[in-house]
C-alpha cells in the first residue's frame, strides 16, 4: 500500500474530462457481427430506422480508440460494466461518441488491498441535438497483485 494517496490533484482533475471521439454508424455489418458473437445467429437484420438489439453497442467500439487512462497501479482488471439505453439504437443512424472519465476513487482493503477504481463511459448521442441515446460504462480496478488476496467477493 502506498504511504500516501495516489489521487493527486492532477489525477482528480481528470474526473469529468470528456474527449469527443468521432461519429459512428449503426451499420448492417455491425449488427450482423454482434448477432454472431452474442447469439451465434445470422440474418439480414431490421430495416433502416428500426430498432436493433442493445449488444450492437459493442460493435461500435472498434471504430475508435478511447484515450489512455493513467496507470497508477501495476495491475488492472474490469470489475463491472454496464450498458444504458434511453431508447433502442436504430439501424442506419449516425451517432457521436464521447469518452468521459466519470469518477476516480480509491479503496482501502477488500480483495485487492489498496486499489483505485476508474469509471469511464462512452456516450452515444444524436448529432446536432446532443441528446444521449446510450452509454457504455466500464469500471476498472487498478491494484498491486502483491497486496491482493485470491477469490471472495469484494
Amino acid at each position, binding site marked *: 500500500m502506498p504511504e500516501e494517496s495516489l489521487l493527486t490533484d492532477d489525477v482528480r482533475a481528470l474526473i469529468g474530462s470528456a474527449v469527443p471521439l468521432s461519429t459512428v454508424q449503426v451499420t448492417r455489418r455491425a449488427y450482423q*457481427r*454482434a448477432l*454472431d*458473437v*452474442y*447469439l*451465434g445467429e445470422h440474418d439480414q437484420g431490421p430495416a433502416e430506422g428500426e*430498432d436493433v*438489439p*442493445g*449488444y450492437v453497442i*459493442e*460493435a461500435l*467500439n*472498434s471504430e475508435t480508440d478511447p484515450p489512455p487512462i493513467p496507470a497508477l497501479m501495476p495491475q488492472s482488471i*474490469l*470489475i*463491472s*460494466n*454496464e*450498458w*444504458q*439505453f*434511453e*431508447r*433502442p439504437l436504430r439501424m442506419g443512424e449516425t451517432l457521436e461518441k464521447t469518452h468521459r472519465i466519470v469518477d476516480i476513487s480509491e479503496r482501502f482493503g477488500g480483495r485487492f488491498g489498496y486499489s483505485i477504481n476508474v469509471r469511464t463511459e462512452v456516450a452515444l448521442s444524436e448529432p446536432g441535438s446532443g441528446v444521449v441515446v446510450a452509454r457504455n460504462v*466500464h469500471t476498472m480496478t487498478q491494484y498491486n*497483485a502483491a497486496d491482493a488476496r485470491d*477469490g471472495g*467477493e*469484494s
Partner: protein
Amino acid sequence: MSAPVFAALREGDELPPLELQPNLGQVIRYCALNWNFPPFFYDPEAAKAVGMPGTIVPGPLKVGLIYRAVEAWLGDAGFIRQVRAAHRRPDLTNRPITIAGRVARVYEEDGEQRADLEMAIMNQDGQPSVRGFAVVQFR
C-alpha cells in the same frame, strides 16, 4: 414462451434460466468485434501467466449474455434500458454457465412502465461469477 405482461408482473417472478457454454471461438469473435486482443482471452499459456487456469470469458461479453437472457424473456413486450454486470469470478471458456434472473421491482416512472431485474451468472459449481442488474421498459 409468452412475453411478460406488465399488469401481471409480480416481484419475485423468475426469468427462465438460460444455459450457455461460451467457447473459445465465441471469445475470439468477441475480441474481433472490439478489435482488442488481450492474449489471455485466447492463449492458454498467456492465461496461465496471469494466474488463470485457462482462457476466460471477457466481462463485456458476459454483460451481453445477460442482455440476451433478458431479451429472450422480454421478447417484443418492451426494450432493455439498462444491463449491468459486477464481475466476481472468472468464467473459463468451454464451461457451462447458467444465467438466472428474477423480478425485483415493478413500477411506473416518467410515465413509463418499468421493472428492475436481479440477474446472476452461475458457474458449474453453483457460484455466482457475475451479479447483474437490468431495467426493462414495457411498450
